[in-house]
C-alpha cells in the first residue's frame, strides 16, 4: 500500500510539471506581452522593465523562476489588469466561496445520487426504479448552465423563495441554488452508476449465499452489497470533481457568488494572462491531487487492486 501511494505520487508530479509547462508556454507564445501597449515605450526603458521581471531571460529560465516562486512563496505574480492585486489575493478572496457551495453540491450529488441508485436497484423494475432512471436520464441533459437559469426561473422569478444571486457571507439561502445547479448532472450520473453496479452485485453468487443462509436482507445490503457496489462510484468521483471545478466558472458568473470562477472568466475576457494561468495551474493541481486521493481511496477499498 505504501509503495502504491509513493508510486501514485511519483506519477502526479510529472503531470503537474507538464500542466504548468503547457500553460506557461501557451502564455509565452501568445501574441503581445504584458507591457505591450498602444503607446510604445522607449527601447531602453522596455529593456529595464523586462530585466526587472526576468522577461529578458530564456524561456526555460523564466519557467523555472515561475515554478520556483509558486513552490516557495505561493506567488503567481501580479495581475495584469487589477491594480495592486496579485493573483494570490484573488485566489484568497474567491476560494472559500467556491469551496463552500462546491462542498454542498458534492454532498447533494453523492447522497441523493447514491440513495436513488440503491433504491432503484433494490426495487428493480418497479415504479421506484423507473422514477430513478428517469431522474438519471433527465439529469444527464441538465448541465449546470442549463440548471442555473431553470432554477432561477422557478425559485426566484416565479416562486420568489430564494435570492437569484449574491453571496452575503455564505448564508444558507445563497448556497442552495448554486449547489443544486452545480450538482444535478453529477447526481444523475452517480445514480445511474450506483444502480447498475448495485444490480450487478445483487446478482452475484456471494449475495445469493448470504441470502441462502438466511441473513436479513437489510443486513446483506448494508454489510455485503454496498461496499463493492460503491467502487465504480468512487472511481467516478475524480471526473465529477473535475466537472465541478470547471462548472464553478459558470456558477460564479451566473449567480455572482464571487468565487474563483468569476475571476477566471474575467481574466479570460480581459486577457489577463497571469490570472488565468494562475487559476489554471491551481485548479489543475487541485484536480490532479484529488484524482490521486481517489485512486488511493480506491486501492484501499478494493482488495483486488495490486500495488
Amino acid at each position: 500500500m505504501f509503495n502504491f501511494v509513493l508510486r501514485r505520487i511519483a506519477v502526479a508530479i510529472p503531470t503537474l510539471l507538464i500542466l504548468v509547462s503547457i500553460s506557461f508556454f501557451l502564455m509565452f507564445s501568445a501574441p503581445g506581452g504584458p507591457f505591450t501597449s498602444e503607446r510604445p515605450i522607449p527601447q531602453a526603458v522596455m529593456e529595464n522593465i523586462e530585466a526587472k521581471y526576468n522577461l529578458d531571460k530564456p524561456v526555460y529560465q523564466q519557467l523555472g523562476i515561475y515554478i520556483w516562486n509558486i513552490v516557495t512563496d505561493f506567488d503567481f505574480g501580479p495581475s495584469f489588469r487589477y491594480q495592486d492585486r496579485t493573483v494570490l489575493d484573488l485566489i484568497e478572496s474567491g476560494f472559500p466561496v467556491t469551496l463552500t457551495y462546491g462542498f454542498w453540491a458534492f454532498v447533494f450529488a453523492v447522497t441523493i445520487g447514491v440513495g436513488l441508485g440503491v433504491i432503484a436497484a433494490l426495487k428493480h423494475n418497479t415504479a421506484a426504479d423507473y422514477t430513478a432512471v428517469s431522474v438519471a436520464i433527465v439529469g444527464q441533459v441538465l448541465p449546470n448552465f442549463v440548471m442555473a437559469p431553470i432554477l432561477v426561473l422557478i425559485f426566484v422569478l416565479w416562486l420568489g423563495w430564494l435570492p437569484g444571486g449574491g453571496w452575503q457571507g455564505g448564508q444558507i439561502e445563497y448556497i442552495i441554488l448554486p449547489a443544486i445547479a452545480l450538482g444535478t448532472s453529477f447526481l444523475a450520473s452517480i445514480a445511474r452508476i450506483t444502480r447498475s453496479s448495485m444490480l450487478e452485485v445483487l446478482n452475484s453468487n456471494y449475495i445469493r449465499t448470504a441470502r441462502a443462509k438466511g441473513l436479513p436482507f437489510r443486513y446483506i445490503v448494508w454489510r455485503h452489497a454496498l461496499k463493492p457496489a460503491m467502487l465504480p462510484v468512487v472511481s467516478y468521483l475524480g471526473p465529477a470533481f473535475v466537472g465541478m471545478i470547471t462548472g464553478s466558472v459558470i456558477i460564479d458568473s451566473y449567480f455572482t457568488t464571487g468565487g474563483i470562477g468569476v475571476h477566471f472568466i474575467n481574466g479570460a475576457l480581459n486577457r489577463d494572462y497571469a490570472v488565468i494561468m494562475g487559476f489554471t495551474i491551481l485548479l489543475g493541481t487541485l484536480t490532479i491531487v484529488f484524482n490521486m486521493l481517489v485512486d488511493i481511496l480506491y486501492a484501499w477499498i478494493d482488495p483486488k487492486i495490486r500495488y
Partner: protein
Amino acid sequence: MLTHKKTNVEELAENLGNQTPVGRSLWRDAMHRFSRNKAAMAGLVVMLLIVLFAAIGPFVAAWHYSDIDWGLMGNAASAGQPSIENGHYFGVDDLGRDLFARTVQGSQISLLVGTIGALIAVVIGTLYGATAGYFGGRIDSIMMRTVDILMSIPYMLFLILLLVMFGRSILLIFIGIGAISWLEMARIVRGQTLSIKNKEYIEAAVASGVRPFKIVLRHVVPNLLGVVIVYATLLVPQMILTESFISFLGLGVQEPQTSWGALINDGAGTMRYGTLWQLMFPLGFFIATLLSFFFVGDGLRDALDPKDR
C-alpha cells in the same frame, strides 16, 4: 443439416451449388434489435427531425439570422413574442433578431461541433487505442500513461486558455474539442483490442505473414466498429455540451454567429423581463438533441453488445 431426413441425395447435391444460404449477419441482427427498441427509435426520429430542422431551416426562415428587425429592436418583451404573421416564428431576441433563424443557425453550429468532435475522436482514438492494445508491452504502457496524464488535466480550462490566447474562433474550438475527445475512445478501444488480438483470425493473419500495421487496420479495427459506433454516438452530446459550455461563457462562437450555448446564455440573461421564448426555444432544442443522442446511443449499445445486461 446432416440429420435432415434422407431425401434424394442427388437432388440435394444438385441444389447445393446454386442455393445461396439465407443467413443473417451480425449487423442485420443488431439492426433488428435496435428497431424493436422503442426509446431508441423515438430518439432516432427526434434526432433526424432536428437535423432536418438545421438543414432546411434557413429556407423556411423569413429573416436572416443576423438581420435586425428595427421595428422590434429594444421592445422584444412587449412586441417580440413568437408570431406567424410577422415571420418571427420563435419571436425575436433583445436586438430584434429573428430567433427562429438564430436557433437554426445555432443548431447547425452545435451539431457540426458534435459531429466533427466525434469524428476526430473516432479516427484518432481508434487508431491510437488499437495500436497500443495490439502491440502491448512497453509501447502500450507509454501510450496509455500519456492518455492517463492528459485525462487528468482539466481540459476545459485549457480550452478556455487557448481561446483567450489565440483569439476566439470556431476552428480553434474544433481543434480543442477534437484534441481531448479521443482520450476516452482510445481507452475503450484499447480494452477491446486486448481481447480481439487473441482471436484465431489474428493468429491466422500473423501466421500468414501479414505485417503488424496491416493487421491493425485490416483485422483489428473493423472488428472494433460496434464499440466505436456506440461510443461515437455517446460522444456527440458530450461535444455539444462542451461547446455550449464555452459559448455560454461567451468564449465560443462569435456574433452574429451563435450556438445553443450562446442562445441559452442570452435567454437566461433576459428572462426576468418576461421574454421566456428566448430561453425556451434554444433550451428545448438543446435538451431534445442530447436526450435523443443518449437514447440512440443506449439503444445501439444494447443492439451491438447484447451480452451486456
